């Protein structure tokens, strides 16, 4: 116990002297997020310093092993790290799909060489990853995907199209589900990694209802992928994909609670007087659900760290977290009134309320729809028949 106490002191001291004051301000919008990668433009010197200092200590991925760029923290230590960061409002030094999604999959399925090479790059913020899963004809029914990798001996030649590829236009590499056997639906998919700068890869951003383009269409036209860039076994990519989806759902679910635990009602009432008692009541009922979900997130994370809890629980978390977040933004809009409708004005920070509100509608679609999540819960947790 006293070891943990010392550890907390150590972290506290280190944060105090290393986290720039600017990095202790709340993240206002997308621009404040540090994604890393070959082409990343740091918004400020402080953002760069903060990421580099953390990377040097392994704090960008605190619970990954030291050999792969992490700090080798135990579950209890990682929790202390999060708590101490939260205490001073420190921003995440680095955010990426590499950390949240590919990393855990590589830790479980990668070869030693792959772990050292790719995980290190992720931890240091050198390579930004995107995820090639959905296709125009394969949304909720992901396993029907058609992008094909033709076996050419020491490499595959990949042809096909992905869609809803988040930040594909900004990413350096892609982890991609590719069909390598047309005769077997589930056991005919492989999990491949390749450079987005490879000849034959092109991307086209999709303009969304929010007016932003975080997603792309991604096209593969005779893209060469060396055989050593497969994760897990040939044709068993679905196992990796499912495991990774669990982490994706975990990540998306956290947008509904976790660090956004602060009371919505108090935030809203600071901005403008709450004159409508019915709206106030809605906010109070929302805050009950949101604070309860924060406890659920904490419990879920605690259980994940020690391997407790049902393996299908991330689906429940994803469902509950995203539905909650949509409700949050509905209330933000209602409380904001006509001011929240402004789309471009400076006062509205470029229409951030309205754009966020629209953005959240994707929460319960991306990474598996709420309906699919409920199907999975019914089948795998509740063991309902024929589900």
């Amino acid at each position, binding site marked *: 116990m006293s070891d943990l106490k010392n550890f907390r002191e150590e972290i506290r001291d280190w944060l105090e002297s290393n986290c720039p004051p600017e990095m202790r301000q709340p993240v206002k919008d997308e621009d404040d997020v540090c994604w890393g990668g070959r082409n990343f433009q740091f918004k400020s010197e402080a953002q760069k310093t903060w990421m580099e200092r953390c990377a040097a200590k392994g704090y960008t991925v605190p619970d990954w092993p030291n050999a792969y760029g992490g700090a080798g923290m135990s*579950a*209890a230590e990682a*929790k202390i790290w999060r708590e101490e960061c939260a205490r001073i409002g420190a921003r995440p030094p680095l955010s990426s799909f590499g950390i949240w999604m590919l990393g855990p999959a590589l830790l479980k399925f990668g070869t030693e060489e792959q772990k050292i090479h790719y995980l290190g790059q992720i931890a240091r913020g050198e390579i930004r990853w995107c995820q090639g899963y959905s296709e125009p004809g394969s949304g909720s029914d992901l396993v029907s995907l058609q992008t094909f990798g033709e076996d050419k001996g020491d490499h595959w030649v990949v042809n096909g199209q992905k869609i809803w590829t988040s930040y594909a236009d900004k990413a350096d590499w892609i982890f991609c589900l590719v069909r390598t056997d047309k005769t077997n639906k589930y056991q005919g998919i492989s999990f491949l990694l390749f450079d987005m700068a490879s000849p034959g890869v092109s991307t086209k951003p999709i303009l969304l209802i929010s007016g932003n383009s975080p997603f792309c269409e991604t096209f593969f036209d005779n893209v060469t992928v060396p055989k050593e860039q497969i994760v897990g076994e040939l044709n068993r990519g679905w196992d990796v994909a499912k495991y990774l989806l669990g982490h994706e759902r975990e990540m998306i679910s956290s947008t509904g609670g976790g660090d956004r635990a602060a*009371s919505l*009602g*108090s935030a*809203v*009432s600071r901005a403008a007087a*709450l004159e409508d008692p019915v709206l*106030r*009541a809605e*906010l*109070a*009922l929302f*805050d*009950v*659900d949101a*604070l*309860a*979900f924060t*406890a*659920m997130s*904490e*419990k*879920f994370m*605690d*259980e994940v*760290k*020690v391997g*407790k809890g049902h393996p299908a629980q991330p689906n*429940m978390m994803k*469902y*509950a977290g995203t539905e909650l977040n949509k409700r949050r933004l509905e209330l933000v809009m209602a409380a904001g009134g006509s001011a929240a409708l402004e789309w471009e004005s400076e006062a509205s920070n470029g229409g951030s309320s309205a754009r966020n509100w629209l953005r959240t509608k994707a929460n319960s679609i991306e990474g598996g729809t709420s*309906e699919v*999540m*409920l*199907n999975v*819960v*019914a089948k795998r*947790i*509740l*063991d*309902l*028949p*024929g*589900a």
Partner: protein
Amino acid sequence: MPLYHTEDQTMLADTARQFMADEGAIAKQLRHWRDTGCKDGFGHTLWKQLAELGFTGIMVSEDDGGLGMGHVEAGIVMEEIGRNLTPSPFLTSAIAAATALGASSHELKGRYLPGLLSGDSVFAVAIDEGRKHRPERIATQAVRSGNGFRLDGAKTFVIHGASADMLVVAARTAGSDDDADGITLFAVPRDTVGLSQDAVRLVDSSIASHIKLEGVQLDADAVIGEVDGGREVLNRVLNAARVGAAAESVGVAAGAFDMTATYLRQRKQFGKLIGEFQSLQHRAAHLYSEIEIARAATFKAQQLLDGGSEKADLMVSVAKAKAGKAAGLAVREGVQMHGGIGMTDEYDIGLYMKRDRALAEFMGDQYYHAQRVAQLSGY
């Protein structure tokens, strides 16, 4: 502190679950006492058995002869009580009154704790004065008289009041009805002259009293804690009772849900198991999610209380509101998904609906607690 049970807590949970499933089962307890018209509404033998297992001493300090455990452990027992709808004075005696006694003098502890630890005594708490829980407002008067106090007023919704050997009564010794200060708690023996009860059976077959206090004369040593400074102890009692009730609600929800999910796996219509219908699957999965979240919120509130955190008040209200909401959904979906059989007295699902309704009111419903969440959050 991670949000999962320690090994010791897991063992306690296994013991409590097994014991309540065997001895506290609906047929053995709730239906038995209901159908025999028992005046207490619960069984004293079971209460003694809970004492033998040490459960009645969970919230009593080791110095006072108890187990010196906390809200997490008490909540483990409450969840099993809820799951089996076991009528028991555990919540009012071993959680609420025990919390009050923990703040009382050695003399009061000596007078009452042995009976709690042995299962010979039952206690109640008399706080509410109107039909809705509103402990901010206390009008019952206690004025100095002789070497003690004279109490006048009325209390309502006093669960187990008629069976209790002692009632913890919140009364006003100073200030006006809505003042936070000026409250004093008293340990009042049931047979005190001037205390009269009208015991009524509630929808869930529990027995609650309307209590009249007319010139009830008490010695000064009946005071729990400080004169005029009882609000702090009262809040502790309220927190304990609320989080205990939340844990019971989670158990009620889980019990109703288990019954319903089992039914979905067995009942056939249109040549199919009804659990194959996606409309029911999705509702069941949503309900599962709500119950899990309610359990987590309750667990978090218990931990914060045990750790003496200043955030505990807020989380207790979150837990009581969320658990009430989840349990309400569980019993409504339970009855609906059972169809016609769910409306019969013979089938247990309706008993869950009745218990949930009473539990929702006890110590504040989801609206009261959502309101409190707003106030504690500063809006």
